[in-house]
């Protein structure tokens, strides 16, 4: 468990919208939350706005998408007022993001070592020898057995689980204070998922970082986070401590929990969400 000491990121009334031929559609409808040096989980199904929330924090939503917020502050910096150039010193260096699929998020024509080096030297001028040492130490920290060999490999030469560990290494090497992980394991096998999440968890805890874990998997999030936000169609419908998830009140959260089959399944039929129940919220 990470003790929360003060707020790292504070978001108030965040809205994200996109134009369609029937007018602007809001995909995030005014959500507010604070993150300290803790592990916050954002859960929801596809289209709930959870990924858009993560991207909006890093100002990664391009035109014609529109992001507005009453307040979006990171460590005293007003993110809404940062220019593109100023954002570059925040992205990666202070807030970084692990994406879903290593197959598409790593550069196919650069070796693993070069990519990790790029992440480091973009933010810090360092002598070549020290860069190499840091890369090997980082690969070691994400539990890659033979860091020297792996640093010379291209992304297609490593497995999915290893690729995701490389990406985590790349995101953590500039030592950011906040890590956003958007479905970091959904492209991986169940057996590898736990390994990757344990690595993230271990590094985040050890360095006292903040973590925002975005996922559709309620169980996974409740296992690795301290606090959970449940999102549905752009709004936060429930906020609770991870341990309290079983006592969730909102019909949507309860519906999601009930719809998942369990390992000692005895039900003949799974309850299906009745989407009219919370249409008013």
């Amino acid at each position, binding site marked *: 468990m990470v003790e929360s000491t003060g707020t790292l990121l504070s978001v108030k009334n965040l809205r994200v919208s996109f134009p369609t031929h029937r007018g602007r559609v809001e995909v995030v409808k005014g959500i507010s939350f604070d993150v300290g040096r803790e592990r916050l989980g954002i859960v929801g199904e596809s289209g709930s706005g959870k990924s858009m929330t993560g991207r909006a924090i890093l100002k990664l939503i391009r035109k014609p998408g529109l992001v507005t917020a009453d307040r979006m502050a990171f460590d005293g910096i007003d993110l809404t007022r940062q220019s593109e150039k100023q954002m570059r010193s925040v992205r990666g260096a202070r807030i970084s993001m692990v994406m879903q699929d290593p197959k598409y998020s790593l550069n196919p024509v650069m070796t693993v070592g070069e990519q990790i080096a790029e992440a480091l030297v973009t933010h810090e001028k360092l002598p070549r020898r020290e860069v190499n040492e840091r890369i090997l130490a980082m690969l070691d920290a994400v539990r890659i057995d033979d860091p020297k060999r792996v640093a010379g490999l291209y992304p297609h030469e490593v497995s999915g689980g290893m690729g995701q560990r490389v990406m985590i290494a790349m995101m953590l090497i500039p030592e950011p204070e906040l890590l956003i992980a958007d479905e970091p394991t959904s492209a991986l096998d*169940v*057996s590898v998922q736990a390994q990757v999440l344990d690595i993230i968890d271990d590094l985040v805890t050890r360095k006292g970082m903040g973590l925002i874990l975005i996922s559709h998997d309620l169980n996974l999030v409740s296992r690795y986070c301290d606090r959970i936000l449940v999102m549905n169609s752009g709004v936060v419908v429930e906020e609770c401590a991870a341990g309290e998830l079983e006592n969730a009140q909102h019909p949507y959260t309860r519906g999601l929990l009930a719809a998942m089959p369990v390992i000692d399944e005895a039900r003949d039929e799974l309850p299906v969400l009745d989407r009219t129940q919370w249409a008013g919220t």
Partner: protein
Amino acid sequence: MSAIRLDNLDISYGDTTVVHGVSLDISEGESFALVGESGSGKSTILRAIAGLAPDWTGEISVLGKARSHGIDRDVARQVQMVFQDPYGSLHPRKTIDAALSEPLVINGIGNRDERVAAMLEAVGLDRRFRFRFPHQLSGGQRQRVAIARALMLEPKVLLLDEPTSALDVSVQAEILNLLKRLRREQGLTYLLVTHNLPVVSFLCDRLAVMRHGRVVEVADVGLLKRGELREPYSQELLAATEGRPAVSAPWAQ
């Protein structure tokens, strides 16, 4: 009678053998699961049965008859496959009606209009979807179409390759309920590939755990539910599902 019998089956892609000496016997009306991590060869077995991976040795029999290596129309009438990704497995420029009619046209079956309408109803799709294109449907609706297409020829066996892993939890529940109901109503045999053990627990009678192209354990689903799988690798999968640290993780030694 056994619906599918595999005897000492080896399957290769080019020079690489990916499935080694698999023997399984799945009885008619049974729901059987193949579980294991990616690359364990579980989907390849489905592909070989369906005729999509023709480079195999050993024996595959379907409902008592040995399967040939080529395209086998008798097998196609009896065995149909549902793929993982409903976004990739439906032709983007064919309406739902065309997708469902095609197997009937190929096999010279008449009365198409009524059959399509009845099948849409059986999988719980409103008739207004009939003349729409796949991009106008949600993921869950598309997977219903894929299941309907597989059932058009009234097969006895469905090969299900991760049928719900691309879907949201609440939609997964709907599709799992649908598969369970269809099996009960039509007396189908399922061979399901998945890495999701709770899904096996809900839908299947028996399971085979695979690793590196070999079956390491065949067990009743009761053992899975009680967490009593014998092999250490099966226990590892179970541990990963429940989020317990796997004892034999590579760095834990």
